[in-house]
Every structure is written in C-alpha cells, then in structure tokens.
C-alpha cells in the first residue's frame, strides 16, 4: 500500500503524576508504526499494554514524551496542530454513553460537523448519509438513552463519519456490548473500510475481531511484539501465549491437533478436520 497516513517514530509516552509519591508510568516504549491509507489495522493486546494510550497519541489528545507522531505530514505537538489532526483522524471510544453529547440522535451526529463550521445544509446531508451507513436512519429522532448499547455505539460511529475524517480509531468499541451489539458494530466497521475506503485502526482484545483486519499489531507492556497479516500473526501461537494472549478458537484447535498453523476461519478449520477424518463434508 502507498501513502502513509499516520507515522509513529520512536514513540515513548510516560504518564506523569501530579502526586510526587507515585512513580511516573511508562506506557509506551520506543514504538515505530506506520498506518497506510485505506488500511484496516487491528491493534491487539490485553489490558494495560498501552494500546489505548497509543490511540490517544494518534489523534493528538496526548503529546509524545519522546519521538514523534505525524499525521499526513502534520506533527502532533501544539494545540493548533492537534485540531488539524483531529479533522483527519476521528475516534470512537469504549463507552457509548460517555461520548454522546446531545439528547437526540441526529443532533449528536451533527455535533462534529457543527464544530467544524460546515454549512447547515451540508451538515443535514452528511448526518442523513452517516446515519444511513450505520443503519440508524430510522431512529434518528430517538433519545440516545433509550437505545441499546450496539445502537448507541453506531450513533457514535455515525458522529465520526459525519465529520468525514480519513481515518477512524476505534478504542475497544465492542468491549461493553453484548454479542449481537458486537456483531452490528463490527459489520459497520468493516463496511466503512470496504465501501467508503476509510482507514480503520481497531483496538481490541477480541481475537475474532482482529482476524478481520488486513494487518494485526500485537502489543505487550508498551512495546510492539509482532506485526503482520492475521494469518501470520496467529501462526505464532506459542509467542502469543507467552504474552498471555489467546488465539482464535479455530486457530487454537488446529494448532493443538497439529493440523497446521494460521487457520483463522471456521470454514478452513472444518476443511482441515474433514480432511483429517478422510471424509467429505
């Protein structure tokens, strides 16, 4: 792939505490990562590995302690640049309740473009389009607190789409949802990437979600352990396990049965087992 959208170079980030008693915590250590335009990248790791911190650095909410984050040639650092970066990189957070601003769905979706100073008619068009793209158009006049978790999260996603950012970072968007809500949100995310060509960075600890990405970045204790296609990453079952991470169920099954590595889909797994049993499906 071609154009670099986000360029992270030798990035270190330390949480300084106001309280002199507590030691500063180094959340990220010397990270190098490039996100290309149109890509779907999953960042994998368990709690406290620094993946959320990385996300907040990528859209200039935090400033790097050392190293640099450059978005489309704009280095993060000053407040003004931060604003420019956030027009390119949007973000969806874990808890849908804490990112919905307005008391009506469509007003909330309009919040972003309103902040950008877009023309009222154009906002209306973008809001309708964004709501349709996440299948929430029919509920546009509802109150957010009466929606389900998955629906709220889709409203939050529409809010970012309406800003027409080139890249959206999802910070564990499905962590607080039930399975059906998770499916809805994942479908919406994949559609954004495939149909609208938006660059996606999906931060997650669900292996099944990471499998759907073009590239998987695995993190532990503030460093990147490995980055490759899902197939390659999940071939390294032992490496992942040594860092306390799971692999998708089908991968694990095939690995443990000695049927080969890097199996990421259920179908593939079924084929392998059928082949082993020597029978047809």
């Amino acid at each position, binding site marked *: 792939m071609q154009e670099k959208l986000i360029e992270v170079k030798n990035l270190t980030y330390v949480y300084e505490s106001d309280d002199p008693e507590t030691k500063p915590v180094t959340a990220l250590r010397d990270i190098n990562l490039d996100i290309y335009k149109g890509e779907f990248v999953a960042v994998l790791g368990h709690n406290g590995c620094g993946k959320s911190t990385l996300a907040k650095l990528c859209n200039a909410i935090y400033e790097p302690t050392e190293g640099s984050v450059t978005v489309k040639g704009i280095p993060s650092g000053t407040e003004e640049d931060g604003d420019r970066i956030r027009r390119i990189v949007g973000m969806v*957070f874990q808890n849908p309740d804490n990112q919905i601003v307005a008391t009506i769905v469509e007003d909330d979706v309009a919040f972003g473009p309103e902040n950008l100073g877009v023309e009222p008619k154009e906002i209306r068009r973008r809001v309708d389009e964004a709501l349709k793209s996440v299948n929430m158009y029919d509920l546009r006049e509802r109150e957010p607190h009466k929606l389900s978790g998955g629906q709220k999260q889709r409203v939050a996603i529409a809010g970012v789409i309406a800003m027409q950012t080139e890249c959206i970072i999802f910070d564990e968007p499905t962590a607080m949802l039930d399975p059906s809500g998770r499916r809805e949100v994942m479908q919406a995310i994949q559609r954004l990437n495939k149909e609208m060509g938006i660059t996606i960075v999906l931060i997650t600890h669900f292996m099944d979600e990471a499998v759907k990405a073009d590239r998987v970045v695995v993190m532990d204790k503030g460093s990147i352990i490995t980055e490759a296609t899902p197939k390659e990453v999940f071939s390294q079952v032992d490496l992942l396990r040594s860092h306390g991470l799971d692999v998708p169920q089908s991968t694990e099954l095939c690995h443990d049965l000695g049927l080969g590595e890097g199996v990421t889909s259920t179908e593939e797994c079924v084929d392998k087992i059928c082949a082993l049993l020597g029978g047809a499906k």
Partner: protein
Amino acid sequence: MISDITFGQYYPAKSVLHKADPRIKLLLTFLMIVFLFVCKNFFSLAVMVFVTVLATVFSGVPFKVILKSIRPVLVILIFTTFLNIFYTKGGTVYFEFWKFSVTEKGINNAVFTVIRIITLVVLSSLLTYTTTPTDLTTGLERLLSPLNLIHIKVHTLAMMMTLALRFIPTLIEETERIMNAQKARGADLETGSLIQRAKALIPIFVPLMVSSFRRAYELAFAMTCRCYTGGEGRTRMKQMKLSARDFVLLALCLIACAGVIVLNIFFEPVI
C-alpha cells in the same frame, strides 16, 4: 422505578405549537406569565385562561398528560387556598368560627390564586411538552446572545445545560445500578431512623460521584476528538427561522395582553 421519570417531559406530536420557533415560544411563555400577574380581576384572568385552554387544545398534548403536570403543585394549591380563605378579611362575612372568618374577599382571593397557579403551571409545562430540550437550550442561547457583549459566555452555559439534560437519565440509571449493587452486599436502605437511612446513602453517593467524574473526563476527551473548541466558528444543523406561524402566535398573544390591560381598567380589581 426512578427511570420512569421522563426528564424534559417532551411530548412528541406534530402540532402548531410543536412547530413554532422555540425562541418565540420562550418569549411568549415569559410574556404570558408576566401578564398572568398583571390580571387584577376575573375578567382579565378569564382572557388568560382562555388563551391557555386554546394553547392546550392546539398543542396536541392529551388533557391527561397536562393534568399530570398539575399534580406536583397540588399541595401548594391546597395550602394557599386555606391560607387565603381563613386569613384574608374584607367584604361580606359568610361564616365565623373562633378566630377564623370566611369572607367574600377571602374566597375571591383563594379562587383567583388557584386559577392563577394552575394557569401558570399549565403554560410553562406546555413549553416543555412542545419543545425538545435541545431546541429549548438553543432557543435560550439565541435569545440570550446579546449577553455575549458583556462577556457572558452564553454558548458555554447552553452547552452545560444540554450536557446536564443528556446525562440525567444516564446518572439515574447508574444510581439504580449502584443501589442494587449495595443492596446485594447487604446494604439496608429502607429501615432505621432518618439519620441511619441518610448514612446508608453514603455508599451510594460516593461511587456515583467517582463515576461521574470519570464520565466527565471521558466526555471531555470525546468532545475534543470531535473538534469541539467552544462556541466560536460553530454552525448549526437546525437553523431557526421565523415563519408566518410564529408571527400569528405573537399577534394573538399581544391581543390577549391588550385585552387584559383593557379589562383591568374597565372592571373593579378583586385582588
């Protein structure tokens, strides 16, 4: 239980009043309430009652819902009625009992005040029934925008109001969850003296406060992410435009106000 409270009590419908400009609605409600207190006799009061009834009919809000809004002031109504009947003296004495006496003036006062309070409540709840909280805050923001000249940040105030409205249901839900969690751990919230029960609320309010701060922090992040930098350079999706409808409403209300003044002059004041 608590989550049944619908805050802002907006009643969705497609009536004339729902479609009217929130700025006009705010202004007119204010004007009508002022004129409710300008009324000096039953004739001028009748004009106001007529306007209120008319507004209720055209609001598309069912009568039952309107009645519900009067319920919270019932105690006040009963209380003022008693005070007025027994403590106002003047005119024909109908009934005397120890130190109390029921007089013509007392009864007049009581009836007048009750009608006035009910009209007041119905008028102001009509505003909230027919206007969404968002429209209400934007309307207020626009109306108060001249205050920007004396460096009062009207936009910030309006944003705070919107966020408060937005988070009321969320916080109610949260309170319920915490209460259940504490009950599950054996917290006793229902029995004991008043002081004991008040103390039992501490383990509910502390987590609620902590989580509210966390929410506020996250919300601030989310708003920054969506390029919120304050009121400057912001546009609005929903533009407010005065239409013929709004001018008709305004004219009707002005006629009513004129009527009140005329009737005040032509008839004896009772209050």
